[in-house]
């Protein structure tokens, strides 16, 4: 008999004869918490029928560090380094989201140049985050080459960040009222050099992926989510825009200097993994265009507010004058008091809407700080988006959210 893959010979079965009863049962499979493609420590319990996913239950919390509880103990400035460790791929954007929330609560005026600098580093971190995503998503799906190319470009941005604030990943560059220090000409030259070749680099990634048949088959019509579902599941950022929903807080509630910049919000159509890939790559182009505009138009001026309650005095002054030294100690040890009140402030980070809900009781430390992390919210849609797909597609599904467990678990 020819091997047909059947468990019995189909031709020997006549209509009268009953088929041998095959026992079918659902299979429970544990994936993670240690898994090379989970971008951190994530456990998913899968309910399978053969290779088809019937249900995916994510178990979170392996990276839970209690950032929100820790934040209640420290001053408002001491929270800034905690925000670095949420989404450690693009820490600058997290810093900004946090200081924006505090500034919204306090009503602080930020100097012009600081806003431009913030927008610059936020867009740079968007580029670096999307490059990281592109490399790792391709790596997860099986296209290893892209990873090496994107990390080559990402390195330039990290070098600029290192020069700018002394750290490559955990930047802590933002301060309430401005930024920590000014940009120097070396960084600007480096960035111009980077921009000169970056469009060609994006084209290079496109040649590797855009029309790659394997890539298309692994991403086209995988993890499809309709626009209505995406909104109801509270997806944000490129994950939402891939479904064609035009929602971007940079346009909806312009902050920083986005109102003065010329940029578009790329949208997908089908809401599948390929469209989200497409949206992110086009965002790379938009962001690099914004960086170019900022470098051309950034005005001169102070980079942090003059308010002595918020900023540390110059180090030269601290060594020379008693008052400056007192101010220095006051700002570092006590921080600043925030009037009683509460505020929600959302910011468009590379992964989606990163929001902070801050409740102040009038003292120098936050009474309650809630972090609305896009990765956590996206995990809520994992079950919905992975049902009916193959087990091999699950890696694609959480890759497509651009998930970082540090942010998901906080």
């Amino acid at each position, binding site marked *: 008999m020819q091997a047909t893959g059947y468990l019995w010979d189909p031709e020997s079965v006549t209509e009268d004869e009953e088929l041998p009863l095959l026992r079918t049962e659902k299979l429970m499979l544990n994936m993670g918490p240690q898994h090379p493609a989970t971008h951190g420590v994530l456990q998913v319990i899968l309910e399978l029928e053969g290779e088809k996913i019937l249900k995916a239950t994510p178990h*979170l*919390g392996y990276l*839970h560090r*209690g950032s*929100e*509880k*820790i934040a209640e*103990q420290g001053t408002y400035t001491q929270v800034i380094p905690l925000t670095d460790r949420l989404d450690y791929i693009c820490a600058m954007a997290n810093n900004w989201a946090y200081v924006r929330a505090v500034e*919204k609560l306090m009503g602080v005026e930020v100097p012009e140049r600081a806003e431009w600098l913030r927008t610059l580093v936020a867009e740079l971190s968007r580029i670096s985050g999307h490059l990281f995503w592109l490399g790792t998503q391709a790596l997860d799906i099986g296209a290893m080459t892209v990873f090496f190319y994107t990390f080559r470009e990402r390195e330039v941005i990290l070098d600029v960040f290192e020069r700018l604030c002394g750290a490559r990943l955990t930047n802590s560059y933002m301060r309430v009222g401005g930024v920590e220090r000014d940009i120097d000409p070396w960084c600007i030259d480096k960035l111009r050099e980077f921009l000169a070749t970056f469009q060609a680099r994006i084209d290079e990634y496109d040649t590797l992926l855009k029309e790659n048949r394997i890539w298309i088959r692994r991403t086209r019509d995988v993890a499809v989510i309709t626009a209505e*579902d995406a*909104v*109801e*599941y*509270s*997806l944000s950022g490129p994950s939402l825009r891939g479904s064609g*929903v035009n*929602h971007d807080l940079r346009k*909806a*509630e312009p902050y920083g200097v986005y109102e003065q910049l010329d940029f578009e919000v790329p949208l997908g159509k089908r809401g599948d993994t390929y469209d989200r890939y497409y949206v992110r790559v086009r965002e790379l182009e938009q962001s690099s265009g914004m960086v170019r505009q900022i470098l051309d138009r950034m005005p001169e001026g102070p980079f942090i507010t003059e308010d002595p309650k918020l900023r540390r005095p110059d180090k030269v002054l601290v060594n020379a004058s008693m008052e400056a030294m007192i101010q220095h100690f006051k700002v570092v040890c006590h921080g600043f008091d925030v009037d009683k*009140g*509460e*505020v*929600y402030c*959302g910011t468009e980070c590379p992964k989606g*809407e990163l*929001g902070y*809900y801050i*409740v102040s009781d009038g003292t120098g430390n936050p*009474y*309650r700080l*809630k972090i*609305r992390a896009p990765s*956590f*919210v996206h*995990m*809520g*849609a994992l079950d*919905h988006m992975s049902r009916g797909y193959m087990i091999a597609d699950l890696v694609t599904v959480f890759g497509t959210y651009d998930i970082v467990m540090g942010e998901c*678990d906080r």
Partner: protein
Amino acid sequence: MPATHEGAMEIVDKLRESFPDHYMGHKVFRDEPYIGIRKDGLREICRWLKETPGLEFDYPVEVTAVDYMGDAERFEVIHVLWSMRHRRRVILKTRVSEADCAVGTVTDIWRGANFMERETYDMYGITFTGHPDLRRIMMTDDFEGWPLRKDFPVEGRGWRENYDFLPQVGD
């Protein structure tokens, strides 16, 4: 359409007219309305906010809570909602007492609220009545206590002292 004070007051007025029994007070801060409501009306108001033409708050941004220890109604459950069409935000605040620590779920209104409510339950012990899968999400299933309550100690509960093979504080 950027948020304006008038836009915020419009939402507040509509809500006050439609739900005079459930409305408790409001505050407009940075042109965004923060509305206090009674917890009995929460689900009804959420559904109304989502379905009423002109409001259409179709995007659940956040569900969280704050612990005001010492108050008669100790917890405040907060719902942050966003309207995609009208591009504005509303924040609902509901008070819950410690003795009757439960509030209606909004998971059937916005499915995305599922994980947010689970997190709030995990951190504060507030039950969301009607939630399909109310389990701990960050902490392990056998964890005791509610970590973000103000009476939960930052330094742990002396569990380290229970294990004599571990180095102790002061050794």
